[in-house]
């Protein structure tokens, strides 16, 4: 198995700077990421789904993701679904505050007491949802929960919480003249190279098997994918060994 970040839950906060509830989402997410579930969570800035690269856009497909929004506009949930993948769960601060009968938070720059209380209950809600999601099986190929377990070899990421700029390792490959983006391919190549596997037709199926863990391969196109993967791996192998 390629060494990829272990199964974690993604948190995407709206961070809406215009309103107190947006500040609540940011501080609640931070509390979970840094204090409550630091080893189980990772985040990415919402704008990177547009301003970033393919690796950033793969975020919600790669991680089961909780969208945390300040208001009913649900920018984080809707934008995540539109530009990355459907969030596994959605939390809206204004709804949570109403449900609990709390006062509306005030002070986007410096939260008042009600705002701090909202941070606390929102963080608890996020952490509880993280625990629930970690118990479920997530398919990185489909970007949704699956029945089959995916047994990833785990590796702690170099950066604990923030995924901005790092993204998920992806690579674009031409298959039958069409460019496809394959999640995890750089990590798969690295693992094969480190295992001393030379690029030859004997490993083509093995490469495809690994790629299919994270990416859908259309039925009937397996041979074309094998050829493309082997070609790309030859290039990778030559570059690495030439260093």
């Amino acid at each position, binding site marked *: 198995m390629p060494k990829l970040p272990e199964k974690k839950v993604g948190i995407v906060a709206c961070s809406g700077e215009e309103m107190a509830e947006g500040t609540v989402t940011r501080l609640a997410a931070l509390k979970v990421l840094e204090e409550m579930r630091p080893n189980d969570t990772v985040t990415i800035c919402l704008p990177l789904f547009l301003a970033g690269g393919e690796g950033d856009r793969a975020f919600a497909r790669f991680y089961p993701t909780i969208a945390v929004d300040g208001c009913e506009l649900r920018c984080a949930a809707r934008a995540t679904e539109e530009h990355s993948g459907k969030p596994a769960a959605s939390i809206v601060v204004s709804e949570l505050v109403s449900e609990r009968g709390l006062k509306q938070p005030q002070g*986007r720059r410096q939260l008042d007491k009600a705002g701090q209380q909202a941070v606390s209950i929102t963080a608890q809600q996020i952490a509880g949802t993280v625990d629930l999601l970690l118990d479920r099986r997530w398919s990185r190929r489909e970007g949704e929960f699956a029945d089959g377990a995916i047994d990833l070899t785990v590796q702690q990421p170099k950066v604990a919480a923030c995924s901005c700029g790092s993204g998920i390792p992806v690579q674009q490959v031409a298959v039958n003249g069409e460019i496809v983006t394959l999640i995890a391919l750089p990590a798969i190549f690295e693992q094969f190279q480190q295992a001393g596997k030379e690029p030859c037709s004997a490993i083509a199926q093995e490469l495809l098997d690994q790629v299919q863990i994270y990416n859908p391969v259309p039925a009937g196109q397996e041979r074309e994918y094998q050829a493309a993967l082997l070609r790309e791996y030859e290039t990778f192998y030559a570059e690495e060994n030439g260093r």
Partner: protein
Amino acid sequence: MKDNRYEQEKKVVIVPCSGIGKTYGTVSREAAYEVVEDLRPQSSQLVALSLLVLGDEAARAAVAANPAVTIDGCKLACATKMVQESGGTVARDFAVLDVYREHRKLRPRGIAELNEGGQALAHVLAEEVAAVVDATPHQNGPVEAEEESNA
């Protein structure tokens, strides 16, 4: 129904970074709040980045109709890119790191809460943004600048 979330008179739009993983994002927001709440409340207004990502019509219209000052927390420059993608004109793009390089004594620490260095850096940055607001053609700029110079 008309969306009145943003003021109709021409104001400079301030768009800070929305990052939560680094202290520079917090500095960008603190500077933005200082400009729109304390330094230039009459001639500037805040637009949230998340609304631009969503493609919210009112936010896009506000950005498209007014000059914008962006404040980015890292080199990925999300605020600047999103304003440009939303059809806006960036009057000036600030990067917190650049401002820090010019004021290395003001070392920011903390994300949820900035240390003294971070607060001071945000203030320096806010002053620079306010100067750009004054120099950018918009409805209330000269008046506010004049009032301040006469005070």
